[in-house]
């Protein structure tokens, strides 16, 4: 799940909740999902360091990603 997807879903959830025509059970479920997505997005945003990888092509044409330092 990407941050973009989390944010889009969050927008959707908030809009639904704000529309006020949703049952309480459904609203609670949406709220819980929203909290989970919020947490996931915040966790990803909290990543301290950018990950740099380099791609290498093997002799048989397959690709391999390896981490690059710095």
């Amino acid at each position, binding site marked *: 799940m990407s*941050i*973009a997807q989390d*944010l889009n879903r969050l927008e959707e*959830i908030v809009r639904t909740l704000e529309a006020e025509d949703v049952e309480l059970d459904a609203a609670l479920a949406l709220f819980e999902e929203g909290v989970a997505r*919020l947490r996931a997005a915040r966790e*990803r945003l909290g990543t301290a360091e950018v990950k740099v*990888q380099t791609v290498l092509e093997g002799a048989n044409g397959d*690709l391999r990603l390896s981490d690059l330092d*710095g």
Partner: protein
Amino acid sequence: MTQSLPLSQIAPTDEVWTVSQLTSAAKRVVEGEFMPVWIRGEVVGCKAWSSGHWYFGLRDRGSQVRCCMWSRYSQLAAEPPKDGTEVFVLAKPGIYEAKGEFQLNVTRMLPTAAIGAARRELERVKELLQRDGLFDHARKRPIPALACTVAVVTSADGAALRDVITVVGKRWPCCRLVVVNARVQGDGAVHALARALALVNRIPEIEICIVGRGGGGREDLAAFNSEAVCRALAAVRVPTISAVGHETDVSLTDLVADLRAATPSAAAEMAVADRREVSRRLDDLAARLAGGLGSRTRLAAERLARTRDRLHGAMEAVIRHERHRADRLGAQLDALSPLRILDRGYAVPVRPDGSVLKRRAEFAPGAPFRLRVADGDVPSRVEPS
């Protein structure tokens, strides 16, 4: 006010310069005046020394100037030019103090013929790509707003990559950068770049592709003007940003890419979001989420309160009804009570323990009993027989 000076004589008080002072002053003037400039001319008498330095003259119809090109610059140029070769040189004018000679210190040399050929090739490729619609505005795809995986096609040890990593690290550290190493100049650069761009299409999850290099001379950017690289760039399946660090020149990849950036750093800024902005957006969403649920529960609470009121009302009605019924039943019960019969003049004999005496046989002669009448008991005794 002036008198003609006695040029034929020199007085002891006159200020006299040494030759060194003169050349030194001239050097200051000349070298302070000029920035490196491009000069066009014809090479004459080029001598390449074993040290690698080149010495030659540069002339046109009206004038000639001495030039020197140190080995660290001459080794970048191919061959020492033959007499009569027309060239462009990038040089800083100066004075060679030991000989008091005006000379050019050349840092770059390009045969004009090569430039002409390069320009013609550029025009040819540009026309071809234009005809095939590779520059069409309609082709341009928007850059995804929150990309988390970005491919960077450039030299793995170049300044461009370092700049991209620095900017992305600051703005959007949750990003993953996948470096596809490629030569960006010199022999094989065209092939390497085209191949690297094709490779990008085979790496999963890539959302944006940056292709570029740091600033360089015009001919260093040749690969970015090549047909093969441009076509490979157009075939990349994700939105592309071209970042060929040369502010004044537009390369053909700049025209083919979905977005053009002046430098690799600028490309990185365009490619990724700013963590602080997204964080603010999350805060806003969190507040709205809480507010949304709050209003939703408030609504539910209100409904609950209304239900409770109705329930309460209904219960009261039931209770009222039951109370009436109880009252009615009580009245009926009352009417049936034997105590009410006493009101009408009946009396009930009871033993001291309260049990009723119903038969003659139960009245033992001389036995005490009580006679219950409407307003109380009367102590009584059976007549002795």
